[in-house]
């Protein structure tokens, strides 16, 4: 994937771009639909996410997260902008990717892939009550207070479940940081 993005950045390679689109487009579309977008809007937002990837390809820096993580951040920002118009100001630090970096050594690329695998495994192993607050945050976009109201739980319980879930994710990455 890193190679595809480099070809987009360096050569404006449309075939590489199409491959990125076909890999990530369906995931982004599913994410947008779960956020409440209808299929046509979700498709548009997936297209727009990938166009942003095209425009910013040369700003991506691999040591700061995998391409999939970067694309998640772009899709999330677009979702905030389009689907939740009541809270449009939430520009998140994509600026982390401002500095183009020299080619990442292969071992670093490997460890980023490793990180991604471990986070996915840790997510799959979260106890149901922690998995639920993670899903309500990332997929439903609910604030702490909204989650508390939705689940009929005290705010403190919601926050402590999120903290424990976070600690588990962090612990899964510990020896790689």
């Amino acid at each position, binding site marked *: 994937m890193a190679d595809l993005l480099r070809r987009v950045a360096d050569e404006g390679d449309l075939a590489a771009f199409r491959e990125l689109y076909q890999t990530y487009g369906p995931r982004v579309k*599913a994410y947008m639909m779960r956020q409440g977008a209808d299929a046509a809007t979700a*498709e548009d937002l997936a297209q727009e996410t990938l166009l942003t990837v095209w425009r910013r*390809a040369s*700003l991506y820096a691999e040591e700061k997260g995998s391409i999939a993580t970067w*694309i998640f951040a772009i899709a999330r920002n677009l979702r905030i902008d389009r689907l939740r118009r009541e809270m449009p*100001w939430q520009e998140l630090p994509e600026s982390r990717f401002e500095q183009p970096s020299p080619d990442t050594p292969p071992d670093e690329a490997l460890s980023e892939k490793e990180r991604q695998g471990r986070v996915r495994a840790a997510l799959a192993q979260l106890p149901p009550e922690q998995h639920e607050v*993670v899903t309500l945050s990332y997929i439903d976009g609910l604030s702490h207070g909204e989650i508390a109201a939705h689940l009929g739980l005290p705010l403190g319980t919601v926050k402590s479940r999120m903290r424990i879930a976070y600690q588990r994710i962090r612990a899964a990455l510990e020896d790689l940081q």
Partner: protein
Amino acid sequence: MTITHHLDDATLMSFAAGALPAALAAVAAAHADMCPRCRREMLTMERLGEAVMASLIPAPLDSPEPATPAPGSDAGPGGDRNSSGPLGRLVGTDLGGVAWRWLGPGVWEHRLALKGAGKLRLLKVAPGHAIPEHGHRGAELTLVLRGSFSDRTGRYLRGDVADLDETVEHRPAVARTGGECICLIGSEASERFRGLLTRQWQRVRKF
């Protein structure tokens, strides 16, 4: 600048998820911009976001081809729209140019435009003054931009963020020695003041 007060883990998770109310997200973004530790944590939480997105059943695309991209990129001169940072975009680069509104003895406020829920403002407190004891109806993030303040939860210097929820009541005070304190404050809802006098203060000043 040594930052010792950071965003709560639950706040970071909501922030990375894109679920933090707008006023709080603005302050969290300004803090993260100053704080390498919270930027690293944000990345971890974005990896979790990637994992959550990857766990969804992919939705097949109607169009097998991507939209044709226009030539050019955001990388060239003038393409970097983030150069001023989140704080610069909110309040400009010079705190000296802020139009302050007097709220009470030693306390000034400047409201920042925010579409959506919550309240975002700059607050300036003169040396030796304090904000009356108050709680919050929702979460509140306070980021120190200049000077320092103290309350029952600790002492906050430039770059530190106080991440408080509705369970905390406090009376932020600025030391008599040293300069004024300027903070960026994002609130989910308005403050709840204790005592009749301070409630009147709140009403008169529309605090």
